[in-house]
């Protein structure tokens, strides 16, 4: 069956890549790109990194409107979120409009979690959208005393950006060690050293009791009773898949996190409906398990593949990947490949107690499952290659030994 109407819901990285891949694959039918925000598709990683510099950066927009409309022939529907999906009638509801599709890519991403009871105060922000980042930038420009809630990667990057301007920064983390779920205990602790080494006041094992202020945030009261004055509060406590609009669609949403459950080809089970990016929980054949990733690389790749598969389901191919993410904090680059398996974490270069360059490997059973580096750009992707090839743990350790011998 030849398809005529591709609708892509979500106008961020995955949605953009879906559109571009459809045209690259030769699709000549109509494409509608639906975005909740007014902005043209833009890149998110810079929002918590270079966009916060004290220079005057351009918004990281991917393509001009003319490239999208004229070169790619995309109808842009920006500024209104999709509110419903009818898989039997093959329609997406967007405001007052109903869009017909015969191929659909769901790429609505994730929404930043907020701190209950704080959203009414000016100066309290999450960093997910361009508008968020513009507001945070403005507060940093004004020299705001900054408090970051959550020592995850986004929170750490904000803290780093504020410190780069010489501002006082406190980071409050509810867990005893930051980043445990992302990279495990040992390396979570190593990453948190960077805060101490760069003059950020990191407080772990404390929560936020309440955020106080008269219309605008003035101080934060912590669960241990301490009070911290702040003019800017950035909340970085994770994100949840933006799938509320799919609640009555009949699509299967994950019982724990509401991600859209897909098979290994990113198909949701409904005819012609595929998902990509932060919303998609799919079966990754490389690790033989269901995963949902909030990473740039998987969003880009899934977006492209979901479109190709939606347009030609008979030839659909699985999405196989070794997850990858990076973070830039205090002039150091943290990179992680694979999964943070906990059978064993072996530091093969550097010393987590001393800082500097570190390379750590993660074992699952008898195979190499993950690798983390701090300032290890020259080796991290070699480990990604080894993980892709299901390299055994002894072989991975031998490789690490060989690298170390070369380096010294």
């Amino acid at each position, binding site marked *: 069956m030849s398809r005529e109407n591709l609708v892509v819901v979500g106008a961020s990285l995955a949605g953009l*890549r879906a559109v571009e891949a459809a045209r690259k694959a030769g699709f000549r039918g109509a494409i509608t790109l639906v975005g909740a925000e007014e902005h043209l598709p833009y*890149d998110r*990683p810079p929002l918590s990194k270079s966009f916060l510099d004290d220079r005057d950066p351009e918004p990281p927009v991917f393509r001009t409107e003319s490239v999208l409309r004229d070169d790619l022939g995309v109808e842009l529907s920006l500024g209104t979120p999709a509110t419903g999906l009818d898989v039997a009638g093959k329609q997406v509801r967007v405001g007052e409009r109903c869009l017909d599709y015969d191929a659909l890519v769901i790429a609505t991403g994730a929404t930043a979690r907020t701190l209950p009871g704080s959203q009414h105060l000016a100066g309290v922000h999450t960093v997910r959208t361009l508008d968020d980042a513009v507001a945070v930038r403005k507060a940093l420009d004004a020299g705001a005393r900054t408090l970051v809630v959550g020592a995850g990667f986004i929170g750490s990057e904000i803290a780093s950006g504020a410190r780069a301007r010489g501002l006082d920064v406190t980071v409050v983390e509810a867990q005893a060690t930051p980043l445990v779920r992302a990279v495990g205990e040992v390396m979570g602790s190593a990453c948190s050293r960077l805060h101490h080494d760069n003059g950020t006041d990191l407080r772990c094992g404390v929560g936020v009791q309440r955020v106080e202020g008269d219309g605008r945030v003035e101080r934060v009261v912590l669960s241990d009773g301490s009070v911290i004055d702040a003019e800017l509060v950035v909340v970085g406590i994770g994100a949840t898949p933006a799938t509320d609009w799919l609640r009555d669609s009949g699509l299967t949403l994950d019982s724990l996190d509401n991600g859209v459950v897909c098979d290994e080809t990113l198909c949701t089970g409904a005819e012609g409906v595929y998902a990509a990016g932060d919303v998609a929980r799919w079966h990754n054949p490389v690790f033989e398990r269901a995963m949902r990733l909030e990473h*740039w*690389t998987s969003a*880009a*790749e899934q977006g*492209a593949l979901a479109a190709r598969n939606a347009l030609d389901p008979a030839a659909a191919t699985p999405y196989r990947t*070794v997850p*990858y993410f*990076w973070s830039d904090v205090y002039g150091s*680059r943290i*990179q992680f*490949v694979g999964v943070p398996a906990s059978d064993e974490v072996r530091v093969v270069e550097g010393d987590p107690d001393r800082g500097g360059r570190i390379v750590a490997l993660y074992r699952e059973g008898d195979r190499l499952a993950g690798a983390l580096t701090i*300032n290890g*750009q*020259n080796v*991290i*992707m*070699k480990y*990604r*290659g080894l993980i*892709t090839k299901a390299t055994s743990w002894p072989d991975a350790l031998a490789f690490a030994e060989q690298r170390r011998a070369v*380096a010294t």
Partner: protein
Amino acid sequence: MRITVDRNKCTGLGICESLAPDVFEINDDGELVLTAEVPDGQLDDVEAAVSGCPTEALRLEQS
């Protein structure tokens, strides 16, 4: 096909290296080194590397 890199954009993330290790490598200084031409049979991998670059620093051109 020829591969070019915009050094103003490349930050040495290295995704290209993981997709086409015969063509790209991040050296000990954290900088990208690459072959000028696409080796035979590796066009798909190099195309994946070009579109996989988060800073859009890579380009493929007819040589």
